[in-house]
């Protein structure tokens, strides 16, 4: 594409004059076909004569350098990243110059996206810095863009750069989740929630946003919020994006299980998530051993997707269901603690002692999952005549 450098530069110049952000973004993207053009691999593009106005010329110069460093064998990711960061700060300048105009937003999205990809490549291939450091720096660059966008309060609604906020926030979320710095998400969420036209962001961005906000709520143990956000994301995500819908379900299903909703098998089947079906069966049966086995078997998947710790929280629900079975068998309101201990031992907690059984039951009573009290002297659990095991959805 473009053939010569001059041709490339004049195409850019035309796109800029036409205020065509989308085309400009394409011409400065690392995923466009022009990156295969060897004529564009230039070590010192400053020497080229061009008619581009600053700071657009800086953006283009940096972009050509990125192409040059990536074409090296092996690719010099570190330098490429540094140039992309320069390009990003020039985009900030460009945005600052333009009052009441927001056409370069697509360009900004592109540059930030590539910056993140390059930072990820550096993390993977380069050494000599603490892990996550480059990604964090990339996030700082993007924050520069974010600040310009967030501060643009005077322009009319269709021209305001604030429309770019959610796209950036989503990109920043991706970085922060990757480097495990979830606390940094908080101010971003506040900025979005407080913005007056929260609803006018494009739907795909809103879905991504809700997906991340939901996941964060989940890590904060704010489960009902998590369900709300993740459900929104799942419901609005179009059918054709199966893998995205699956990603949302990976979080939505266990959170709902924690709140007492078991997933339908057909749904799990459709998204290749039958692991949760097995888990739900073990949970329902109160089979601690089986539950642990499944968790252990899928350990890597659960850890990678970040739900291992959440799934572990289901453990007390497994106990509750097991004890409910003891109650169903004994058919009395005064249940022997020894029976519960035997039940625990039967389902694989072989080292369960009477002390431990007392503590587990005490925990369930405290959380309202069992209604009743323990009589230590008689070694009995006395359960309520009405609804001794209230449905989890209610608690």
């Amino acid at each position: 594409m473009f053939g010569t450098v001059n041709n490339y530069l004049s195409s850019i110049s035309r796109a800029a004059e036409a205020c065509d952000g989308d085309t400009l973004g394409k011409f400065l993207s690392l995923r466009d076909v022009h990156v295969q053009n060897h004529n564009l691999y230039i070590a010192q593009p400053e020497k080229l004569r061009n008619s581009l106005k600053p700071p657009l010329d800086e953006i283009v110069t940096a972009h050509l350098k990125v192409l040059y460093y990536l074409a090296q064998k092996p690719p010099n990711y570190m330098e490429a990243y540094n140039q992309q960061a320069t390009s990003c700060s020039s985009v900030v300048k460009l945005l600052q110059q333009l009052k009441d105009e927001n056409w370069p937003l697509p360009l900004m999205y592109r540059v930030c996206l590539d910056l993140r990809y390059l930072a990820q490549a550096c993390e993977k291939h380069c050494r000599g810095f603490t892990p996550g450091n480059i990604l964090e720096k990339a996030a700082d660059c993007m924050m520069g863009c974010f600040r310009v966008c967030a501060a643009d309060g005077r322009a009319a609604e269709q021209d305001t750069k604030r429309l770019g906020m959610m796209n950036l926030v989503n990109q920043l979320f991706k970085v922060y989740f990757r480097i495990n710095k979830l606390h940094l998400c908080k101010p971003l969420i506040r900025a979005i929630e407080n913005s007056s036209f929260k609803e006018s962001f494009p739907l795909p961005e809103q879905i991504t946003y809700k997906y991340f906000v939901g996941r964060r709520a989940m890590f904060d143990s704010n489960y009902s919020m998590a369900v709300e956000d993740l459900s929104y994301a799942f419901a609005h995500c179009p059918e054709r994006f199966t893998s995205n819908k699956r990603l949302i379900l990976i979080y939505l299903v266990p959170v709902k299980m924690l709140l007492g909703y078991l997933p339908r098998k057909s749904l799990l089947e459709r998204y290749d998530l039958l692991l949760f079906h097995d888990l739900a069966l073990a949970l329902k049966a109160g089979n601690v051993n089986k539950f642990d086995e499944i968790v252990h078997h899928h350990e890597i998947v659960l850890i990678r997707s970040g739900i291992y710790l959440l799934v572990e929280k289901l453990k007390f629900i497994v106990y509750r269901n097991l004890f409910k079975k003891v109650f169903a068998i004994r058919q009395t309101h005064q249940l022997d603690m020894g029976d519960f201990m035997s039940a625990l031992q039967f389902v694989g907690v072989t080292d369960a002692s009477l002390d431990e059984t007392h503590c587990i039951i005490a925990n369930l009573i405290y959380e309202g999952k069992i209604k009743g009290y323990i009589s230590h002297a008689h070694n009995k659990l006395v359960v309520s005549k009405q609804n001794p095991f209230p449905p989890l959805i209610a608690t």
Partner: protein
Amino acid sequence: MKLRGSCESFCPETETKMRIKEKLLNFYEYKNGQKNVPGLLVKEFTRSAAGVVTPKVKDMRTEECLVRTVEYLFKEICLDKRKPFRFAYDFIFDRLRAVRQEIVIQEFDSRQSVRLMEPMIMFLAYSLYTLSTEPIDNFDPKICQQHLQECLKRVLCCYDDLEKDPQTESLRNLQRRYFIEALYQIFNLGVFEALSRGLTLPLHVRQDEVFKLAFNISMDYHRGHLYRVLQNIPTLPHIMCSLASLKMQTLRRRLLALFSHAYHNKVLTVPVTYLIRLLVLKSPNVLFQQCRQYNITVSKDRTAVLFYKNDYNGDINTLKSMHESFVNAKLERINLPEVLLLKKF
């Protein structure tokens, strides 16, 4: 260009001269028993601030000298019984901070940093427990915790960096790492960030026995399985056990809160012996102290406790942490400098 220190004594000459002249010596820097006779000086921590010139090469110590400094502090000062431990702590804390500063200025690599910082972590953890009963004027646990966390995070980053290198670590170094990784889990009991780290560590770390024990305790804490947490803490090794024991009072309180609901009854009682066992307390009196604090009724003959959920006081402060007998028994048996320097586990 990296700066490299050349000083081979604990305290650079310029500082030594200045501090002797200005009589700015610490108690531990005077020669034993002789007033005003300078003994061994150790470089003080000074804040790097605007206007302060970059340190000269001769004002910074070599890596070997820094190692010797740390060893000296733990072998000599830590065991110095002339004054209570908190004085030694203040002195060592400051001098270690100076060492840390040099690690940063001289841009030591991961291997060098780890070697120097692992013992600092051990010392801070040990001090946090030993001085936990001191009044706030004598010892500020917040600052100590903050430094401990900083050191831990720094060292963990170094481990990750070293892990990238296919070069095999010595067994000794690996053991040190396992201990510190476990200590991090214990210090951050049930914390999401720490647990996620624990889950994604390389297999050789996750399979280490001590690490597994510490990680499982943290995991049980996350699950809310307090019984297991309380029962397993006393099985941890020395320093780690002492660090974990600082959470005992919170754990006991939470269990008592559970019990206030579970054993809620106006007539029925729960025997003292059972509670002592579950709460890992050494005598009925300590249990009564807990009951007083959280407003739980003790029976007249003092052999049982009456739980009543409306009585339990959830607003009052948790009891201050105390020196636990199971920890003290462990600490008495160790050779402190060897353990702090991670030469013995």
